[in-house]
């Protein structure tokens, strides 16, 4: 278990995401090829809260639900990456979202809450991995994640699609 990335330094060693989009703080448990439990603490110092006025209500401070999904999926990414680490998004195999389905929100997340992501690997194919699980705050489920599909693809599939890649040197001249 010595290779399990427990804190941010370990997580950064296996995920390419960085501030402000690194949304996993700690890994509590990791069973390779099977399941993972990870934490993400929410604070009003995250940049999403910067634009909120002083008149914003408590519910206006609900953590963006798409970021709950992102955070949960990054936790799933740690589970994959524990076997195939790739902190460099520009080389080798990269992990891409294939699809997200059956995500139900059953509670709210606000600054001060710690999200606990329970990730279970439900199916692994050659280049596709399917996850399911929940996100909990203080023991209550705030989101049920029915199905997340992640696909491992060659990085070139991404880099070749960058607009103007071939022409970028011409634009500079």
């Amino acid at each position, binding site marked *: 278990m010595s290779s399990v990335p427990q804190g941010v330094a370990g997580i950064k060693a296996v995920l390419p995401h*960085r501030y402000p989009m690194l949304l996993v703080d700690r890994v509590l448990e990791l069973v390779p090829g099977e399941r993972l439990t990870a934490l993400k603490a929410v604070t009003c110092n995250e940049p999403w809260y910067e*634009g909120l006025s002083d008149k914003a209500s408590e519910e206006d401070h609900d953590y963006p639900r798409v970021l709950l999904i992102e955070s949960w999926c990054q936790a799933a990414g740690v589970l994959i990456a524990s076997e195939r680490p790739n902190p460099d998004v520009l080389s080798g195999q990269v992990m891409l979202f*294939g699809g997200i*389905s059956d995500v139900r929100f059953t509670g709210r997340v606000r600054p001060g809450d710690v999200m606990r992501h329970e990730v279970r690997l439900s199916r692994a194919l050659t280049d596709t991995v399917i996850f399911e699980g929940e996100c909990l705050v203080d023991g209550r489920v705030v989101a049920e994640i029915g199905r997340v599909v992640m696909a491992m693809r060659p990085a070139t599939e991404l880099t070749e699609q960058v*607009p103007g890649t071939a022409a970028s040197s011409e634009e500079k001249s």
Partner: protein
Amino acid sequence: MTPTACTPVDGTPEPVDTEDGTATVVTVAGDEKVFPGHYPGFPIFPGVCIVEYAHRSALATFPAEGRWELAAVESTRFLSPVFPGDELRTELTWSQDGEGWRCKAKVASQRGNAAQIRFRFDAGRAG
């Protein structure tokens, strides 16, 4: 977007008229706040931020009065990556579902279809 929106995206989807429904357009600015971390040296718009622009497009064109909130992301398919400077056009199709609403969003950039998303919205609750 309203000044009280807590969101990872910086732009505001603008409703545009279409013949048979609702659509919005928004430009993904090169300085969106997520880009420095997604990813360093290789800015690619996070899939969940495409979903967020579709979500905000739905809220901006909601077919009923009142406060509504996202209850479920029933499905999402990502079809092509989105990069800084891309213009996203989102076409929304609504259907009523009991006391809630379902919304199907088709998002396209200038390179073709970027994502398809199905949302469910319920009446928002205070607190």
